């Protein structure tokens, strides 16, 4: 056990898996010589050589498209897209090719491919770097989506994702790369996709969050605790598969729920969570389920207004208080 940052945990998982599985390769922009713009792949090229750690041309569609072919040939590619916003340049390859090849070939050709992409705001980046677009990918049949909030889960989920025969979009909270630090077990372990985590136990209200919103929920829960409110936090850890059972068990217990996401409100993944709660825990609810989300605006590229966009502790605490008062 060691305290590691999220980026260290990711790097450790990539390294140990390349050691374990000779079929695995890493490809993407700046992943080899530079070790990734966030250093997630630092040291891999020196250790595993240029055939297994590859700086590709700056072209997202062929990074994903080539990964489809590499996987069909029997390799296990782990592709890095530098920021999730730029994955739109590969959206057709992800949604129509990567996620469908198993079905299209009726099981003959699989796509054991993991696409790693940082996302989310709070780092004063330029336009398109910060957008939380996970809901767009959650509508893609055949794809799985992991979104860890802790370093421990980042390692375990990344190992599970790489080993999963299905393609996985592995979302990494940009703001948490170095801010998130926690105990990471040594050695090999996986965190199963589709199992949410009770990040904090509570009895009065359920807060559902994932990735970069989990630390926000934890701070809000601390503030609420000082007022005598016991909030339970469910960290989804993966959006597809979605662990509805854990969410429902919590809401049945608390009777109230608030779902928080970074992305714009309309048709966001929070809507999916709210719907699932209303389908399966409606008669346990004592108040309408609330959403706390980014507004339906472009993510601002002016750092001055980023704080208005991102759901923060104060907004979440306010929503919880309104839910409790309802």
């Amino acid at each position, binding site marked *: 056990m060691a305290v590691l940052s999220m980026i260290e945990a990711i790097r450790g998982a990539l390294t140990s898996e390349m050691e374990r599985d000779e079929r695995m*390769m890493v490809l993407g922009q700046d992943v080899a010589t530079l070790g990734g713009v966030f250093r997630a792949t630092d040291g891999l090229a020196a250790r595993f050589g240029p*055939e297994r750690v590859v700086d*590709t*041309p700056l*072209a997202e*569609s*062929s990074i*994903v*498209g*080539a*990964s*489809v*072919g*590499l*996987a*069909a*040939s*029997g*390799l296990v590619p782990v592709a890095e897209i530098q920021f999730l916003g730029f994955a739109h340049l590969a959206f*057709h*390859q992800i949604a*129509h*090719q990567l996620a*469908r*090849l*198993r*079905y*299209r*070939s*009726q*099981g*003959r*050709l*699989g796509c054991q491919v993991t696409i790693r992409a940082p996302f989310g705001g709070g780092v004063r980046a330029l336009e398109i770097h910060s957008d939380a677009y996970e809901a767009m990918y959650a509508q893609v*049949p*055949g794809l*799985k989506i992991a979104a860890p909030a802790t370093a421990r889960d980042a390692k375990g989920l990344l190992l599970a994702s790489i080993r*999963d*025969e*299905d393609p996985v979009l592995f979302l990494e909270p940009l703001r948490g790369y170095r801010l998130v630090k926690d105990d990471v077990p040594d050695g090999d372990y996986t965190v199963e996709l*589709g199992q949410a985590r009770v990040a904090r136990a509570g009895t009065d209200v359920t807060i559902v969050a994932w990735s970069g919103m989990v630390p926000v929920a934890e701070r809000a829960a601390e503030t609420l605790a000082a007022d005598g409110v016991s909030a339970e936090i469910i960290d989804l850890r993966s959006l*597809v*598969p*979605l662990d*509805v059972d854990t969410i429902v068990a919590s809401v049945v217990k608390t009777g109230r729920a608030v779902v928080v996401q970074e992305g714009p409100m309309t048709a966001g993944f929070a809507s999916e969570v709210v719907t699932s709660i209303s389908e399966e825990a409606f008669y346990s609810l004592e108040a309408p389920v609330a959403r706390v989300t980014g507004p339906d605006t472009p993510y601002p590229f002016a750092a001055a207004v980023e704080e208005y966009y991102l759901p923060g502790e104060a907004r979440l605490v306010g929503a919880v208080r309104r839910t409790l008062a309802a």
Partner: protein
Amino acid sequence: MTSRSNTKAAPAHRVDLEARVGKAGERHVPPILLPDGTLAPGAECPLGDEAVIEALVLMIRSRLVDDRGVSFQRQGRIGTFSEARGQEAATAGSALALDPATDWVVQAYRELPALLRQGMSLTQYWMLFIGHPDGWAFPADVNVFPLQIELGTQLPHAVGMAWGLRLQRRPGVVIGYFGDGASSEGDFYEAGNLAGVTEAPVVLFCQNNGWAISTPRQKQTRAETIAAKAAAFGIPGYVVDGNDVMAVYAVTKEAVERARAGGGPTLIEAQTYRLGAHNTADDPTRYSAKEEREDWERRDPLARLRTYAINAGLWDKERDEELAERTYAEIDDAFREAQERSAARTPAMLFDHVYANPPARLERQRRLIEEEEGLWLS
């Protein structure tokens, strides 16, 4: 295939590198089989006798399948159908340069002769057009990527697969087919660029048939040829008469051998013409000139090879009739089998193979539809 006592082995043909060179360095492969079915002066047939017959049989079979396919569509027995008519030499010639045991075809959608050469069954082909998932399911010994419907999107797959084979020190070469229209797609440029950088053993093979539905080749690019774009990828580019099955074979064979030997990718532009419609929903008389279509009818690649084979004593009218009779019977048997197999439909066909390890909620959706199955089909 009938073996003949006077069978001649294939000569060691090399593409004439002194051929005409385009503005961007792309080489125009000299003709071998002329439109009248004779060999160009000084040219030698690069195919052995058996391979000439194999090419001819592939092309005839493809043409007969097209005939039946259009008729089945008109009768409402299959969905929209696309013919390979007029383009058979481009795909038969290029596919003959492959070893089906190790090499892969990544198809666009107008490559029936290549699919047949790789070993696809006609039953599977009909199931695709009837609309059954097994139409996509190439058996393990048929090295073909399943049909996907976006344009150019398959080319990065071809490059990735070729790159992966090379990384694993496996012997295969991959041919990625696309059309003149798809050469305007971004994925073509990304794939060509990545192929060059990775030196993947891939042949990017453009069937330039002059028309992307109604859009003529001149509106796709101002470049002199599509092969000219190879210069930007740093790889060799060739233009070949796509209706000259021998020249197509020769240039593809050389590209495949180069790729297999570690010499990297090649871009080939086969200039051909779609004698049929884009598909059964299309009407070429709305955009192409009658004279143009008639001119290309005179350059029909199938008539050309048939004439050559007859003159060479490799083929005759009787064989032609016997092949047609046998092929029609095979087509109709395959269609019957495809119809029988396609009659079975279950909710499992929606859900099987979407995931290797499906999410629990998808399994719940499956159970729901299975429980309601009686309602749907009643």
